[in-house]
Structures are given as C-alpha cells and as structure tokens.
C-alpha cells in the first residue's frame, strides 16, 4: 500500500487501532505502576506522536491536565534531541514542570519508535510519582527548588543501556526509592509495548510511514470541532470566580471569544502568582481550559493535534495561571482544576443548557506522610489518598455525589490505602445536606475520618480549596456546602499546608458539595421525599429550604 492511498475504511480502521494502541500503552502503565495514585486512581497519560511532535492519539485516562501539556511535552524533547540523533533503545526523560505536566512529581518519558530500521513515531507517557523529595507533595514550598529533584531533558537510556548515574541520583533524592525506581521502569515498559503494537499495525497494513494517516486524523478532527463551533453564537463573554488561595483569595477571570475559526480564552484580570506552591504553568492552564471547552462544545471528538489546535488559551505572564520558573507549582492542580468552572461561567451566557453549576472541582486528596511499623526499603510512607466532593447540578439532572470532575482520577479504595499506610479510616460516607439545594440539587460531598493505626502522629500536606468560597449555585439554586478540615477533638485545621495529626486524634475531612440550579421550592415533591427517606437531606432542610409541608 502506498502511503498516500489510504482508503476510507483503512483510515477508519487504523485510526481506531492507533487509539487502541495508546489505550493498551496506558493499561500497561496502570498494571505495572508502583505509585498508588497511578495504579488505583489512574493518574497517568500516554500518547503517540509523529516526527514533527504532532500528537496523533492519546489514551483517555484520569488526567485532563495532561491533555495539552503532553501534546506540548514531545515538542520540547524534539528540540533537545533532534530526530536525526535518535537511536533504537534510546529513552528520554524530564520532570520540568514548564515543559512537562506542571509539577516535579510527574515524570515524562519519550521513546523513539523504529520500524524496519527507520524512525516512524514517538511514544510518550507520564505518571504521578508519590514522592520526588524536597518539601513533599504539598503547597508549602516558596520556589520550585524546594519542591524536589528537578530533572532536565536527559537520556534515561542510550541504545538500550540504562543511565545508571541518573537512576542513582533519582533513588537518592526520594523518600520512596523502591517505588520511584519501579515506576521509571513501568513508564519505559509502556512505551515499549505501544511501539511494538504500532509496528505490528504498520506490518499488517504495509505502511512505511505515518504521514498520510497523521494528516488525515488531524484534518478530520479539526474540521469536526469547527463544525461544532459553527453552530454556536459568536461573540465575547466574561466571567470571574474567586477561590481560597494559599493565604489570600485568588480571582480567576476569563474572557472567552467564540469565532468561526476557533475559541480563545484569555485570563487577563486574573490575580498574581502566589509565593506558595499553588501556581500553574501555562501548559497546565491550557489543558484544563481546553478540557472544559471540549466537554461543553465537542465531547465526542478524540484528542489530537488537530482537534486541540482549534482551542487557544493565553494568560498574562506572571499571573497565577502563567507562573514562571522558579515559582513553586507542586499543588498546581488545586487552581488548575477550577478552570472549567471559570470557562462554564462564560459559556452559561451562551449555552446554559450544556453547562453545570460550579462543583468542588479540585481533588480533595488526603496527602499524608509518616512513619511505618516495619522496614520496607522506603523512608516511611507517603500517600495521596484520592477523594472528591460533589459536582455541580446539571441543567436537567442533579449533580453527582463524591465524584471527580474535571479530574478523572478515581477514588482510592480504603482497603488499598490501609495496605500502603498504617492509617485506619473510621469513616468514609456521604455528607448529608452538603449538595447545594435547587430544583436540581448539587452532588453531595463526603465525610472522612482517619487515625494512625500504630499510635504515632502523621502529617497532612493539605491542598484544599472551596473552604471560604463554596461552589456557587445559579438561577436561584443554593451554594454547595463549604469544605472543612479539622481534628476530631475539635480544632479546625488550615485548608493548605503542612500540619500534624497527633496520636489518638483523628483527621476529619468534609469535602464540599456541588452548587444547585433553580429554586429549591420548584423541586419535584417526590424527589424531595426520596432525598429525605435516603437521608441525603435533613428534615430541617426539607422544610426550611425545599418548603416541604407548605
């Protein structure tokens, strides 16, 4: 088959196959990962790129934050390692937050893929390592150098030989040397599997290169997104949202412009970078902004260089959404995951039926650290127990309780968390009355209580938001319940930063509920009765807010 002569059916089959190849690449990473946030919660990404660095397909995983950032990462590798220097068996690595996926915990590996001696594609993948040294996975650092080991673009392997010097450096700079080394191997393996499957496909279809396939995938995807945009009203809309920040509120302001040739979001008016680690590199800002746009405008079109090119994002240099090195960025997701809500604030003025009310939006992870009872080869335990609040009410439906959005990272099973840490979870249950009341109710948050199971203290690296600024309801709907962090003995804890839970006491975390839509008194009576019977709302709320018995 000549490269240019792809028939319609061949194109469709190969495109589907390419998506299957990256899905398998992601599955291998999930199955071989050591990092619990990867193997249990799906915090990873995987994709295949052509030799110009155009992303052709990306696995749908738990991390919208990696959508565009992954797509850009490979271009940076290509700038450092030109294609003509690449050899079979080479592997390249970085964790540069500005040229990868936004913080040092994410390792990005890129592997050139050869077919019959010729370089044909690049496979790239990312996963979240539980510890990379420094101050740890929390927002307390005041610059990126405090946040851990910074790996520039380097060769992890050269023609099949692992760079043992680099591996020794990595092992020496993390609290979890065993897990971190294992995860580097897992990342390398998943790219290898992706490459092997791509070569199989090229053999089967008699392809010598991917140029024609790449062009057609990108063109078609781009046209499909443009066709969706063509149906939208054109114009410019503004919206702003204020969130807690580290020690002062942060305003996120967006101007969204819909034109025939695409949608642009600009964050002029957004507050300045913080001196603590909640700043967001632009690649990560772009990723969550585009994710919000895609959900509302073109949810069925695969991510690739073509479909992503239609959405563009800008933010003033030095604002919290375009922080420059050496700003601290470890907890960049807390602010970055708010961006779909900001985008929806604009879009609800245009397509109100297609966007939800504000939700919890940022992950409410229990980032915990401490001593263990027995020797493991690591230094104590470090764990991010992923957990979530409620999502905002949808125009025709209630919000989802204890559900990740916009992140797709899954919750960590309690039994898994207790097998990795010496903690005991005494409670993990829905939080009644936390869903913002409305004709459509917001999703509920949850109540979590944890204690050390070995009678020691443990550390919380809090990175929570929506404690002072709960998710807002709309069109008469009430706000969701604000989040809360404290000790069982009564003391309230800060929403952000390093804090200690003493032995015998319990950490109590209440995740926020989503905002409601519409007047609660207009809610169908049978739904109010059902919520009451299920104890999702209290008798007082049913009477006082929903007007039960009036």
């Amino acid at each position, binding site marked *: 088959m000549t490269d240019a002569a792809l028939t319609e059916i061949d194109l469709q089959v190969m495109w589907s196959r390419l998506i299957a190849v990256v899905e398998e690449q992601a599955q291998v990473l999930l199955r*071989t990962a050591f990092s619990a946030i990867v193997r249990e919660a799906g915090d990873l990404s995987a994709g295949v790129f052509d030799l110009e660095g155009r992303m052709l397909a990306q696995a749908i995983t738990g991390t919208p934050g990696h959508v565009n950032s992954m797509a850009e990462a490979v271009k940076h590798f290509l700038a450092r390692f030109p294609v003509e220097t690449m050899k079979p068996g080479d592997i390249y690595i970085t964790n540069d937050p500005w040229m990868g996926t936004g913080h040092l915990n994410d390792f990005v590996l890129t592997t050139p893929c050869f077919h019959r001696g010729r370089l044909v594609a690049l496979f790239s993948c990312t996963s979240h390592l539980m510890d990379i040294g420094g101050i740890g996975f929390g927002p307390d650092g005041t610059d990126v150098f405090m946040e851990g080991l910074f790996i520039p673009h380097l060769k992890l392997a050269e023609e099949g030989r692992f760079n043992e010097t680099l591996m020794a450096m990595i092992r020496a700079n993390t609290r979890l040397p065993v897990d971190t080394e*294992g995860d580097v191997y*897992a990342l390398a393996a998943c790219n*290898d599997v992706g490459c092997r499957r791509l070569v199989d496909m090229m053999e089967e279809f008699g392809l010598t290169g991917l140029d024609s396939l790449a062009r057609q995938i990108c063109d078609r995807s781009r046209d499909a997104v443009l066709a969706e945009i063509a149906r939208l009203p054109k114009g410019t809309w503004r919206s702003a949202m204020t969130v807690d920040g580290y020690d002062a509120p942060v305003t996120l302001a967006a101007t969204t412009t819909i034109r025939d040739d695409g949608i642009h979001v600009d964050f002029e008016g957004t507050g300045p970078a913080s001196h603590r680690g909640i700043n967001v590199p632009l690649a990560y800002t772009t990723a969550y902004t585009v994710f919000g746009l895609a959900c*509302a405008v073109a949810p069925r079109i695969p991510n690739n260089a073509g479909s992503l090119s239609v959405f563009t994002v800008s933010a003033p240099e030095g604002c919290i959404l375009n922080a420059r090195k050496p700003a601290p960025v470890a907890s960049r997701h807390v602010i970055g995951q708010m961006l779909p809500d900001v985008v929806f604030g604009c879009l609800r003025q245009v397509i109100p039926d297609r966007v939800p009310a504000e939700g919890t939006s940022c992950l409410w992870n229990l980032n915990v650290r401490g001593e263990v009872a027995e020797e493991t080869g690591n230094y104590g335990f470090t764990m991010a127990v992923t957990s979530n609040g409620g999502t905002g009410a949808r125009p*025709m439906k209630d919000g989802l309780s204890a*559900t990740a959005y916009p992140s797709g990272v899954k919750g960590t099973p309690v039994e898994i968390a207790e097998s990795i840490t010496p903690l005991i979870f005494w409670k993990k249950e*829905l939080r009644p009355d936390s869903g913002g009341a409305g004709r459509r109710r917001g999703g509920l948050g949850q109540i979590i209580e944890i204690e050390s199971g070995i009678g020691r203290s443990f550390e919380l690296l809090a990175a929570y938001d929506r404690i002072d600024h709960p998710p807002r309801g709309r069109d008469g709907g009430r706000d969701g319940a604000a989040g809360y962090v404290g000790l069982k003995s009564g003391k309230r804890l800060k929403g952000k930063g390093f804090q200690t839970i003493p032995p015998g006491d319990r950490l109590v975390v209440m995740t926020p509920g989503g905002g409601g839509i519409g007047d609660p008194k207009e809610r169908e009576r049978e739904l109010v009765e059902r919520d009451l019977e299920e104890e999702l709302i209290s008798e007082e709320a049913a009477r006082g807010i929903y007007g039960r018995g009036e």
Partner: protein
Amino acid sequence: MSAAPRLAVDIGGTFTDVVLEAGPQRFTTKVLTTPRAPEDAVVAGTRTVLAQAGLGFPDIGVFIHGTTLATNAIIERKGAKTALIATQGFRDVLEIADEGRYDQYDIFIDKPRQLVPRSLRFTVPERIDVHGAVRLPLDEDAVRAVAARLKDAGIESVAVAFIHSYANGAHEARVRAILQEERPGLWVSLSSEVAPEMREYERTSTTVANAYVQPLMAGYLQRLSDAFAAEGSQAPIHLMTSGGSLASLDAARRFPIRLVESGPAGGAILAAHIAAERREPKVLSFDMGGTTAKICLIEDMEPLKGRSFEVDRAARFLKGSGLPVRIPVIEMVEIGAGGGSIARVDALKRITVGPDSAGSEPGPASYGRGGEDPTVTDADLWLGIIDPERFAGGTIRLSMARAESVLDTAIAAPLSLDTDLAARGVAEIVDENMANAARVHAVERGLVLKDHTLIAFGGAAPLHAARLAEKLGIKRILIPPDAGVGSAVGFLRAPAAYELVRSRYMRLDRFDAAVASGLLQDMSREARALATTAAGGAPLSEARAAFMRYRGQGHEIVVELPLRPLQESDAARLRESFEAEYRRLFQRHIPGAVIEALSWTVFVGTQAVPPMPLTAPTRRPRPAPIGHRAVHTARGGRRDTPLYARADFAPGMTVSGPAIIVEEGTSTFVSDAFEAMLDAGGALVLERKADGASPFGA
C-alpha cells in the same frame, strides 16, 4: 466418559434450548421460555427430546443447566428485596463506588442504579484491619437491632460486607449466626465467601448482587430438581458458570452470581470446540438469540477469560457504567440485538433497533401473541429469509400479514418507504450495530477481524451471519450442527472443573518451600474432591500457579508452578519464571527488585482432549432444493432463492449463494457473496466467492 445420555438445557430470554446426547446421536428442541415458572419449559422440552430418543427421565445420566434468570433479574431489577449491612462509617461504599466518571467528556452521565437503596443500607460498629486483626469488636446488640429493622422493611435477603473481611471473615460469620437466630429463613450472603478479595467496592457490589438474585435462583433450582425427581430422574444436576466450567447444585445455590452469563459462556465453549476440531486459530464467535447478541474472541482455540464483569451496563455499553462483579468469566460483549429486538423510528427519522426486546411474551408481532411492535424477526420474515412454516421447528406459526402490518405502521409510513425497504432498513441497522460492537471489542484487544473466522450459532445468528461477515470483511463462516441450540451443545463440552484461590503472602527472597508446598497439596486435595463428582470418572488434570508482583505494585501476573513439592532452590527458578512472564507481557523486567506472591491457585479439571482434526471432504454436487422463495437482498430488489434442507447435505456438498438452508432451530442465509459446503464434522462452511461483492458494500 460415561455412556449414559447427557442432557443440556439453556434458558434464554426468549427460548429454552434442550439438547440430549445419547451415544452418537443428538436430539434437540427449542421451546418458548416460561418466565413465571422457567422449570415448566425445561421439563416440557426435556420430555420432547426424550421422546425423540425413545428414552425416559430415569435414563438421563447427567443434566447440565445454564440460565439467564440471574442476569435478567438484575437488569430488570426484579430480584429480592435486599438490604446491606456494612461497617459503621461505610454506609455508602456502593454509591461512592470508584468516584469516577465512565465517560470523561460527558457532563450528563448517570451513575449505575444500585440494587440496594440508601434507606436499606445499615451499618454496625465493628472493624478489622488490613492484617485481619480486630480493631473494634462486633457490636452484637447493634446487629440484633438491625435484624428488627430488616423485619419491618420486609427484607428477604441480606448482604454483609465489612471492611477487610477477606482477611478475617469472623465478624461477617457472626452476623449470619445472629441473623439466623433472629430471623430464621432470611437469605444471607457474606462478602468473605462470595468474593474474598481486596477492594471494598467490587467485593460489596458482588455480594449485593449475589444476595439480590439468591432467593429467586435458589427457589428456582429447588423447584427444578424437585420437578426432575418427580419425573423419576436421579441424574446429578450441574450448573454452567460464567467462567465456562461446571458447578454443583449446592455451589450454585450458595453463589448464584456465578451463574450470570452462563448461557453465553456455553456458546463460547462450543465455538472453541468447533474451532479446535478445525484448527482455526482466530475466531469470532457470534451468538444471536431472541434478546441479545454476544460476541466473543477465541484466539488459539481458547476463549479470552477475565476475573471481573459488569452487569447491566448503561449508556452505550460503556465500561464502568454497570455494576461490577468479581467472578471468573469468559470475556465477551453483549448488545441488545436479537430476533425479538424492537425496531422504531426516532425523532431524527432514523431507524433504531433495540436494546429492548419483545422476548417470548408477547414476542414478535408475527407470533400473533399480542406483540404490536415490529422486531428483527418480523423483518427477517418479510425479507423472506425465515420460513414461516418451519420457525422453531414448526412449533410457532408465523404470520406474514402481521409482520407486514406492524412494519408498515411503525417504520414504512413515517419514513414513506415500502414494506420491503422498511424491513431491509431494520435488518441493516441491527447488523451494523453488531458489526460495530465486534469492531470495538476487537480493537480493545488490538486485533483485526478480517482474518478471523466467524462461528455463528443461536436462533438468529445464521440468518444474519453472512451480512455481518460482509460488513466486517470476514471471508469464512462456520455454522455448527444444531446451531439453533449452540449454547446448550456447548454445555456438553464444558470441562468439569474446580478452581481454588487462597491468599498466602510470601516474599520470594524469604521463600518458605514447606509452607508453599503444604498449602498447594491441601488445595489440590480439596479441588480434586470437588471436581470428581462432576467429572464422572473422567481423568483429571491439574495446574498450579501463583499470583505474583514486584513488591509495591498493585496488580499481579500469573506464574505457573511445577506439579511437585517445591524446594528451597525453587525460589531462583520462580524468580526466572516471573521475570520471563513479566518481559513477555511488559517488554522489560526490573533487575533486582523484590518479588512477592499474594495468592495461589490450583485448577483441577477433566482433561481437555484436543478433538481429532477433520479431513477435508471432496466436493460433491448440491442436494435438490426443497423449494424457492423471493428474498429481498441487501443489494436491492427481490431475487429468486432456492431453499435446501440441511438434513439433505452430505459432507462435501456445495451450494452457491443466494440460498437458504433450513433446519430445526434456525435457517442459514447464504448471501450471493458466499458459497456453502457441509464439512466432515457436520458444520456448514461459508466461504467468500472470489468474485464476491465488496465486503464494504452498501
């Protein structure tokens, strides 16, 4: 193998299929399922095949049974009124689930509807830790208080699922004892018995599903064995499981969730057997009945297997949108596309088919039993590929006039088409739906379908196989003998087997050969004892394996173990085996990392003897047609098509399409792109003609 007659019965949503093998002869029938008392159809069908064979109930040597009753009870939410008792603080394990969204980009998804509402989810103080140690003793008074509330709520069945109960089931067992005192007769399912594996959501969901179907299934199995006993049968009853092996009646009563999808598993076993006889390494099995179509990939003569399954997937059959159950399964996709699937015209003026089915009551409109909606069967009838006189062995007389009337009203009129095109549209849409499901399933495994052989069985599959193959670019189709009752035939090929899994943590660098050997010996003895009953004297084979991983990982790989006592020196050999398997799966291993074994498994089953390969028959002229019919083809217009009786074919006889080959349980439609020949094993082989129409044609 015992020579006594073997009976197999598969209850589907629409038909109950019955097969009796007595010596070299096979007798089959197909009767309508009787949903209110499914055993009625089983007994009636059995009586029919026994009469054909000149035998009686006392002659049956063994009875192998599979049923979709459990699946249907869940999908239709018609199970028992069920409650859940969980650890205090964990009332919402089912609802919090994995906190994920099964579709990242769809803001409007609905989460799966749980089988137990929050108002029936109770908690009691107790807590066991990850090592199985009691952190908080069980509050027995609290359990008694819950028991009183269960009574008030009219609960029939209870699931008990405590945190870490897989490591120590004592609290769950104590709850059952208390409930039996307080509420004798209540059904109780314990998560430490149903699915003793880590991860609380999947374990709880599996246990709740077991509890939800248990009263129904236990009651049914009791009535069935009573009915057979009353007819004079003393044959042991074995149940087909979703994993493709046989379980005893007692195991089925305790763990009815393992019977979910047993019919389709039988189909996959049949297809694997057919593939092995013909040495077909790449097979797509296609089982289309009255309610759904099931598609399964069989590579190297083995169906793909898994350890989990989702019941009742919502939107577009997406992964994660159903209720998870942790049981051994044969992997397949199932879509709402069967003979009874209802066709409509939607708001965008598109023809849609399914996923709902007219089932057996009222059934397709042409049955004349009150069905008012057009179905795939009605369309097939109108197109001319179903013989109205011979449908289901002539037990149901189909009405052409009724098919025409409902197709006209529901499809032709709103779209301004004639009846022919309306019927053709219905058939094309259902075929396209099935082709898409097959493509997605293959793609998920990185396989192309063009080089696969399609094995088609089930009442409706041979009617649609040729068109499906055309859409998928498949060039070869096999229609096994007795295709209309394929799953039931497959039951007779299922191994009697028992698989035990035990958790016992061990690091390879601290390998204790005596402990490992002792454990495996005990398991081997227990599995042999359990498999012997169902094996009926056939020789048993054994396989042992360990689930191992690098310390710190969350997922294990399977490493085969030798069938002999292990020695200290085996640690190095196990490390090599692990690394070799790891490299095979993931390309590179991690030098020097610590390896740990989590659980150990012993499988004991009847030897799967590879069937003798078949010899290729010499081509012979076709038999004489038994009639002609004007069939509406996919390429437009009606075409005179000869009818043949499958019984008239001898091996090697070949006909060129278009043709219809009729038999008792189904008809095979040979489109003009194919020719059909009977092979030495009695299967019809459809091969694409060299000059056939484009596989991607309209």
